[in-house]
């Protein structure tokens, strides 16, 4: 008689939590598909909220991871052994962004029309196609980077595609004459910096930071702190209404969360060189909250007579966004398995 030993592989608890959160996210998504966008905290005045904020954060993170992987071909940032995994993170972020857009549109069955209409007057069309290009570049780059080979050409393409996506997303807002708060030119700059923070933070959270990433993140957070203050001061120069909303109005919790939890706290953690992963989570959260207040304050005050809009994310929105992030974590693990990196 022979005896056999069965080895039980320990399941990663992070994956179990991610699966549960992903299921919760899919559940509220189905609920929202049934009842419509009334499940969100959006109104007729403030029409972009947490979903679009999370979309800008996720896509910005993906674009930054792609661009910074490209930068790593020239300066020591991401270690060569981590580049493939960083590109898996970039692709996962892009997929999260795509799911968030599907969550946000009222008539998702019509999304295919964005691909076929080619309305080049719309920056949203440019955003879509640049995102597709960035995704393709990231995928090709990933296939090559698996062998830890240096790929300067793909690195340059990654830098260009990543920057182009973020610039167009910032310009999507900045080009709107009806939204003066976004028109100062600062929006594109904050989008670029926010993307860099989000990308570096995700690399740090995923344990792919290396030695240079915390330093880069620290600098980016410091710059962001300055830019945020400049942005608020710029809006004070105009009517000052938006600045009032940001500093003391309905959207001020998002602003102060960004400044204290999303900027100052991670800077302190990074200076102390403690809990780098936590600094990454807080900084990522800070980018998200910045998008929330930028979108809400920018659209809150109507040109026509009437009350200002107010917005706070509904529970459905919060659970759905967390669920999409969890799906992103699972996709990342899947990409690592598929591409064997």
């Amino acid at each position, binding site marked *: 008689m022979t005896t056999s030993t069965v080895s039980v592989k320990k399941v990663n608890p992070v994956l179990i939590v991610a699966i549960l959160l992903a299921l919760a996210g899919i559940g509220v998504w189905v609920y929202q598909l049934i*009842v*419509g*966008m*009334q*499940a*969100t905290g*959006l109104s*007729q*005045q403030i*029409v*972009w909220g947490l979903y679009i904020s999370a979309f800008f954060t996720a896509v910005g993170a993906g674009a930054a991871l792609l661009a910074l992987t490209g930068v790593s071909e020239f300066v020591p940032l991401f270690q060569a052994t981590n580049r493939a995994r960083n590109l898996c993170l970039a692709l996962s972020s892009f997929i999260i962004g795509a799911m968030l857009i599907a969550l*946000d*549109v*009222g*008539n*998702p069955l*019509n*999304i295919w*029309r*964005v691909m076929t*209409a080619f*309305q080049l*007057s*719309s*920056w*949203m*069309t440019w955003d*879509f196609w640049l995102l597709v290009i960035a995704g393709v570049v990231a995928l090709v780059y990933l296939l090559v980077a698996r062998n830890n080979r240096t790929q300067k050409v793909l690195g340059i393409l990654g830098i260009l595609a990543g920057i182009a996506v973020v610039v167009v997303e910032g310009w*999507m807002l900045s080009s*709107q*004459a*009806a*939204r003066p708060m976004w028109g100062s030119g600062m929006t594109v700059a904050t989008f670029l910096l926010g993307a860099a923070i989000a990308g570096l933070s995700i690399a740090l959270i995923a344990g792919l930071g290396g030695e240079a990433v915390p330093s880069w993140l620290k600098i980016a957070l410091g710059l962001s702190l300055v830019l945020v203050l400049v942005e608020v001061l710029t809006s004070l120069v105009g009517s000052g209404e938006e600045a009032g909303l940001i500093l003391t109005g309905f959207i001020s919790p998002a602003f102060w969360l960004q400044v204290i939890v999303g900027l100052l706290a991670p800077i302190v953690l990074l200076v102390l060189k403690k809990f780098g992963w936590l600094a990454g989570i807080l900084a990522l959260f800070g980018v998200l909250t910045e998008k929330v207040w930028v979108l809400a304050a920018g*659209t809150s005050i*109507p*040109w*026509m*007579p*009437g009350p200002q809009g107010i917005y706070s994310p509904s529970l459905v929105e919060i659970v759905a966004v967390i669920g999409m992030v969890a799906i992103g974590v699972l996709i990342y693990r899947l990409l690592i398995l598929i591409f064997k990196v």
Partner: protein
Amino acid sequence: MRYGIVIDTKRCFGCNACTIACKQKNGTPSGVFWNRVYVNEVGSYPTVRREYTPALCMHCDIPACVAVCPTGASYKREDGIVLVDQNKCVGCRYCMVACPYNARYFDNGSSEGYFPGKGLVAYETAQQLGKIKGTVSKCTMCADRIAVGEEPACVQTCPTKVRVFGDLDDPNSEISKLIVARGGYQIHPELGTNPSVYYLRG
């Protein structure tokens, strides 16, 4: 040809007949106003008065909403009327971000009727047929009425003849003459959309 409307605010006394006519004609849901009358108090005691500003989609000559639409759902006809093809609308609401005139409404799926808790009456049910949830809608300048030679419902119903409908490209049309004679102005022309709705005051 470029259809437009002139609104003589001096004649408006805020009866909202235009608002109701628009709702009856277009069956817009509760809380949705393709046409509305803004009320503003001006002056200081004891010389205070109320000013009424009827407003609708400005059917801009350079519509910001059309430029940003990624699917071509928002479009401008050759006669200047700006419309939304709900069959093409993806519900991204970029047009609402771009429009400075609060002229667009997003159908968020709410089925609340005019009688909360009582469901929809037969009229409301009939009016909602063919409308697509999760899409954007707006004033059509009653394009269907114009097609059969009638004026928009808000123009036709106004008891004090506040609104005059006509062709802005025709210098001999009544609205062109009114704009010239009484200094017609657009709301927020600095935004560069060149609205087809003009206002007369005083």
